[in-house]
């Protein structure tokens, strides 16, 4: 019966990607907390213990992303089987779309069935799209505006360091470049 649990977990991971991400984060944080505690018991001071725990754990974000990816991957190992599952899903979606288009809609029940089918397809599309975009965000393929801004800032500071361009946003007295021009 374990494959049923694995499949349920996989479906849950696709349906609620944010839940899985926070669950993974809680689990990894627990690990770091335990390691920190053990380091403190070994005689380290709390800050040092926390740093050492982080270091011995490795790249937290990468591990988190990897765990989320595994949760969202199909619970079968064979590529042929995976392709088969995707094909079945595509055929089901296509079939539903065809039935929806060809449903008799000259009476009320027909129209209602058509609306239900459209709602099911739209819902499936939204869930699938959200899961995919969450996965891409988690793996860093796409970045939010804030992340892009941060990265650009890091990049431009790298460039100025490399070429020795000393443009500082604030001088020693805390003045911005504009204030420096006018005062």
């Amino acid at each position, binding site marked *: 019966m*374990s494959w049923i649990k694995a499949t349920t977990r996989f479906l849950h991971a696709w349906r609620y990607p944010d839940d899985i991400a926070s669950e993974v984060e809680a*689990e990894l944080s*627990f690990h770091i*907390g335990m*390691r920190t505690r053990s380091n403190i018991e070994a005689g380290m001071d709390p800050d040092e213990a926390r740093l050492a725990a982080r270091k011995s754990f490795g790249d937290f974000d*990468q591990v988190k992303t990897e*765990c989320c990816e595994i949760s969202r991957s199909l619970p079968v190992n064979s590529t042929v089987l995976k392709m088969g599952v995707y094909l079945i899903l595509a055929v089901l979606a296509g079939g539903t779309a065809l039935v929806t288009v060809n449903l008799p809609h000259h009476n009320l029940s027909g129209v209602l069935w058509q609306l239900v089918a459209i709602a099911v397809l739209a819902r499936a599309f939204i869930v699938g799209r959200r899961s995919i975009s969450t996965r891409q965000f988690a793996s860093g393929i796409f970045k939010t505006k804030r992340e892009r801004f941060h990265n650009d800032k890091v990049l431009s500071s790298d460039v100025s360091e490399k070429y020795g361009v000393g443009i500082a946003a604030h001088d020693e007295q805390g003045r911005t470049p504009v204030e420096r021009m006018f005062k």
Partner: protein
Amino acid sequence: MSKAKAGLLQGTLDMLILKALFLGPLHGYGIGQRIAQISGDELKIEEGSLYPGLYRLERRGWVESEWDVSENNQRAKFYKLTRTGRKQLIIEEQNWERLASATMKALRAS
């Protein structure tokens, strides 16, 4: 005598996790500790790499997990071996013994 820490061979992590869980349910941190303990502190798993391994085993249905309260009253995710996992552990152990004896035979050949 200086104790050289053995590097973990590819593919042995799954077997070690299964073995650690064979002795009873544990959370991720506990699994790392138990592996170090049963190997006489010779095998140290990179802590972060343990979790993708655990998730892979869970996806295959060899282990299952549930949230519970840990020994220090914190919420933790505990893993336990499934029936399929037990069977897999036996297969992995047999494969490992075969590989180890074949390697020894090759090394002792003159």
